[in-house]
């Protein structure tokens, strides 16, 4: 294939006019349109150069792509079609055979014009011809509907019929233009009855009339005249600038909120910020509630002074140029006042019944059909809290009064679920409880613990601020988990209706980062508690397995450890307490690639193979432990002594959590292990010698190879440099 010549090029403008595209998908849709268009232009060989110069733009009502140079016609190319093999095409006298003739005929050429084509498979007779490129307009007319309709959306729709196209919202006009000025021509295609033309539409109400366009520059200029700014970046700049101007005179600032900024940029064609105010009295409501209403419900920026004190003002972003009479501002103020009045009403109504007096309502609020009411849940949480506190006390890590604070917070933790405020703003559960506890005279520590007890909501979220808060959060999540598993609500695949994975992630994060507790023993104790829950099979082991998964997820996603490191650590389930896992993981990754360690990992795999696959239970004999008197070779004696020597040192490293040194020490066993496997046949004919050797390997496995981490799970970094175990020696085949 050879490019023969390049042709003239023209700019291409594509606009998909749509009913309002949701703000949250707009940026991704814009990007997808650009990528897909570029891909098709490349495939069609319509781009004059490698470097892409596609520009994309978007507003809620349009996705726009502009390509400055698209070839008018595909370049010519020579095409080769292989026919019969050369040997078959000509007889021994060198005359064309029937095969050659019919091939020529089929391709409409004479035999004389056929050529030799060399291929990897040999020499062929073939035809070579120049193929003229097709017109870009024709090709694009065929391809553009697919480019547009192939944009991926999280939730698309039909708007004509079930057999019609799907898109994020109905497509109402299309601009597809090649060329500029008088030379510009629309590319003919249609989607769901909408034909691509050379006119667009301005702002929905401020510039709704048809706009003829002859090229990109004119297109964006005329749209700007009709109050559409197609560049999200320009809209963002304007919003920022407007806010700056609004606050210039005062020393106030808008509460920083990048997500809200994205939203206003992607939900407007012509953004203008205005400032409104609300009654000073609403500032008596907590900031959390005011900001939630402004940001989440009304999409307003909250305003604060330099000390961070909320002001009775807000900034709304309109999609019109101005609000000269202030009608729009008044409208927003009225809506916000109504919402704040609601919140104020809820606040006051809720205070009539303080949190402690709401326990009896909780008796009647079902937590889960099999698991009783929220009051039942609280009683379970109290028992779990006592256990957590006992463990912390055992380590001398609980200050005086903290247990009582935790118990009080647990008792009140779910009472806010019965308040009107949480009914209205469910996303503020916990926060509302904490705020109410504070004004109702509970100790600060108790109020804060209630406030924080849903944290962490994800592995990225922070832990509660205090130990007491983390205790309450842990008790809550442990109960959800244990009770949930008892009721058979284990998460499966993508289904996790009770959010137990999230609870599990929170548990791991808290014990790792804050409470430094050894999780599995605690879970085992909680699983054994008598809560009158439905009897469940293998409850503890299901929970352990689940929490190991969550731990692995945490270590990979938060601590950034490698997959095999994590697997080696969580499947080891050795003596390392969970809080030290991160330290261990980092230590492991430092020694991971050393030759000794790699070799030891191979030996560990080999050992596990022998112990689990080759040897039968009876091979281990009656005795317990290793008997030095039964050693027959120097290698096994040396290995055992080296192992015993290492053990002492490793113990002391472990006591000081110096895992790196402990692992290095273990790696020093490598030469002894290698020599052992080189010279010693484990499955000896002598039953007692064989049993003793197996017991030696068992001890090594437990005391070294899977002591902190399961070395057999470590992936080899360089398979060639270390011996791969051959199973022939160990699988017993050689035995007589």
């Amino acid at each position, binding site marked *: 294939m050879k490019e023969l010549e390049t042709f003239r090029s023209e700019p291409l403008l594509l606009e998909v006019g749509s009913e*309002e595209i949701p703000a949250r998908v707009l940026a991704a849709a814009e990007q997808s349109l650009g990528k897909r268009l570029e891909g098709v232009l490349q495939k069609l060989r319509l781009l004059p150069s490698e470097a892409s110069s596609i520009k994309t733009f978007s507003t809620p009502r349009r996705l726009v792509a502009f390509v400055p140079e698209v070839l008018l016609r595909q370049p010519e190319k020579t095409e080769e079609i292989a026919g019969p093999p050369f040997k078959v095409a000509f007889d021994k006298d060198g005359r064309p055979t029937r095969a050659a003739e019919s091939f020529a005929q089929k391709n409409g050429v004479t035999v004389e014009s056929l050529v030799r084509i060399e291929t990897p498979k040999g020499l062929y007779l073939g035809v070579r011809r120049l193929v003229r490129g097709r017109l870009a307009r024709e090709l694009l007319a065929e391809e553009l509907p697919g480019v547009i309709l192939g944009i991926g959306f999280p939730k698309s729709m039909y708007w004509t019929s*079930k057999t019609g196209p799907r898109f994020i919202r109905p497509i109402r006009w299309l601009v597809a233009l090649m060329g500029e000025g008088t030379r510009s021509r629309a590319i003919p295609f249609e989607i769901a009855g909408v034909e691509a033309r050379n006119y667009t539409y301005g702002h929905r109400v401020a510039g709704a009339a048809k706009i003829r366009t002859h090229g990109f520059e004119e297109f964006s200029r005329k749209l700007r005249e009709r109050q559409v700014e197609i560049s999200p970046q320009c809209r963002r700049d304007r919003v920022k600038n407007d806010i700056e101007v609004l606050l210039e005179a005062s020393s106030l600032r808008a509460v920083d909120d990048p997500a809200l900024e994205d939203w206003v940029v992607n939900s407007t064609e012509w953004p203008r910020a205005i400032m409104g105010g609300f009654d000073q009295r609403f500032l008596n409501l907590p900031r959390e509630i005011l900001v939630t209403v402004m940001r989440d419900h009304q999409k307003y920026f909250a305003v604060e002074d330099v000390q961070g004190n909320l002001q009775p003002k807000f900034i709304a972003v309109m999609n019109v140029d101005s609000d000269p009479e202030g009608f729009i501002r008044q409208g927003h103020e009225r809506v916000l006042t109504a919402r704040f009045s609601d919140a104020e009403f809820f606040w006051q109504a809720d205070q009539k019944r303080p949190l402690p007096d709401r326990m009896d309502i909780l008796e009647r*609020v079902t937590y889960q059909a099999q698991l009783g009411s929220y009051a039942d849940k609280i009683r379970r949480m109290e028992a779990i809290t006592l256990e957590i506190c006992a463990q912390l006390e055992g380590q001398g890590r609980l200050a005086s009064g903290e247990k009582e604070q935790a118990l009080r917070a647990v008792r009140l933790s779910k009472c806010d679920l019965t308040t009107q405020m949480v009914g209205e703003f469910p996303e503020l559960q916990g926060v509302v409880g904490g705020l109410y506890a504070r004004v109702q005279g509970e100790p600060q520590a108790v109020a804060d613990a209630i406030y924080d007890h849903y944290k962490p909501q994800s592995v990225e979220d922070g832990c509660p601020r205090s130990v007491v808060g983390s205790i309450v959060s842990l008790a809550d999540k442990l109960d959800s988990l244990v009770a949930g598993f008892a009721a058979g609500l284990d998460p499966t695949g993508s289904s996790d209706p009770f959010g137990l994975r999230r609870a599990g992630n929170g548990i791991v994060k808290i014990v790792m980062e804050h409470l430094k507790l050894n999780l599995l023993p605690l879970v085992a104790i909680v699983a054994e508690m008598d809560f009158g829950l439905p009897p469940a099979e293998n409850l503890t082991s299901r929970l352990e397995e689940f929490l190991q998964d969550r731990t692995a997820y945490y270590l990979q996603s938060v601590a950034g450890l490698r997959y095999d490191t994590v697997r080696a650590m969580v499947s080891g389930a050795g003596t390392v307490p969970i809080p030290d896992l991160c330290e261990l993981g980092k230590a492991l990754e430092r020694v991971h690639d050393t030759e000794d360690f790699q070799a030891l990992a191979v030996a560990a795999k080999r050992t596990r193979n022998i112990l689990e696959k080759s040897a039968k239970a009876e091979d281990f004999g009656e005795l317990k432990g290793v008997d030095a008197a039964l050693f027959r070779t120097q290698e096994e004696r040396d290995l055992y002594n080296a192992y015993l020597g290492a053990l002492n040192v490793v113990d002391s490293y472990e006591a000081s959590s110096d895992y790196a040194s402990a692992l290095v020490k273990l790696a020093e066993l490598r030469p002894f292990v290698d020599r052992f496997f080189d010279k010693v046949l484990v499955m000896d004919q002598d039953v007692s010698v064989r049993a003793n050797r197996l017991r030696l390997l068992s001890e090594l496995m437990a005391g070294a190879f899977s002591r902190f981490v399961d070395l057999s799970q470590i992936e080899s970094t360089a398979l060639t440099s270390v011996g791969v175990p051959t199973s022939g020696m160990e699988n017993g085949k050689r035995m007589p």
Partner: protein
Amino acid sequence: MAREKRFKESAKGAGLTFQEMISKLSNFWAGQGAVCALPYDLEVGAGTMCPETFFRVLGPEPWKVAYVQPSRRPADGRYGENPNRLLKHTQMQVILKPPPLNVQDVYLQSLRDIGIDFRHHDIRFEEDNWEAPTLGAWGIGWQVMLDGLEITQFTYFQQSGGVDLDPISVELTYGLERIAAFLQNVNDVYQVKWNSSLTYGDLRRTEEFELSLYDFEMASIQTCRSLFNLYEEEASTFLERYAESKESESEALMDTGRSHMATEHGPRATDGLLPTPLTSLPTVHRFPLRKVYEFCLKCSHLFNILDARGAISVTERVALIARIRKLATGVAQVYLDQSTAVQEVRSA
């Protein structure tokens, strides 16, 4: 006296009265070729639940309708005290099947008609996908925001009664009290002028109080549950017997090989052909569809009351919704069977 003063204050808004606004909107949609139907005489949570929407969006026939529908959401009750929140609010429901290409513009024109001037206001279409799990219905669309106030739910219906819709209908649901308060420039829906002498509060506040009282405090949970079960049983009995008759009908038809008889002459003619117990069974031509659907709606409303009473747990909620949904999808299926049967008769 107090009332007079209120009127003077709000007079500067000079907006339409509640009843004028309703008649303007009705006239507008009548002008667009819509049938102006009457409100449905049963408790519904939304205009979507009325047969004029629930059934008519199914199947291929074009349909345009507009009607006012009082809609009850027990959990939103505020004893007539909250200025914006109502247990029973009034919707204007419009169905356009199929929707015109400029459906958004037509909708905006309806707002201009009642006096909203977009040169002075900011109208936005913000993503809001609507779903009614009890009806097996959902759609894609927006909440229409006027200066930050949600005034309409604008939805391209995708499914109703668990059935994929073809063609697609557009549903417009105007929140009339809010729009009226906006037009009249008042902060409290109870101050909205219903006509020139009475307010919305005069007509409705007591009712709000009484409904709130019952739904929040006094409804007997046990009675509501029993009623739910009774209505459900009545509806599902009909649906089960319908399924039975459908089965035996198709068996009988296969036996006799006279497949056209049943549809041509209706069920009476087939009585003699079919095994005797079938005489009392509902068939595709003799099925009290809209009555059975009423039982389904009764269940839906009782569910809402139980919910407002705080008597439903998270898991029970899922189960109850599934039970209502089963009735709704069953009824929708009978409706489709019926319209197919009617078409067969026509084409025969």
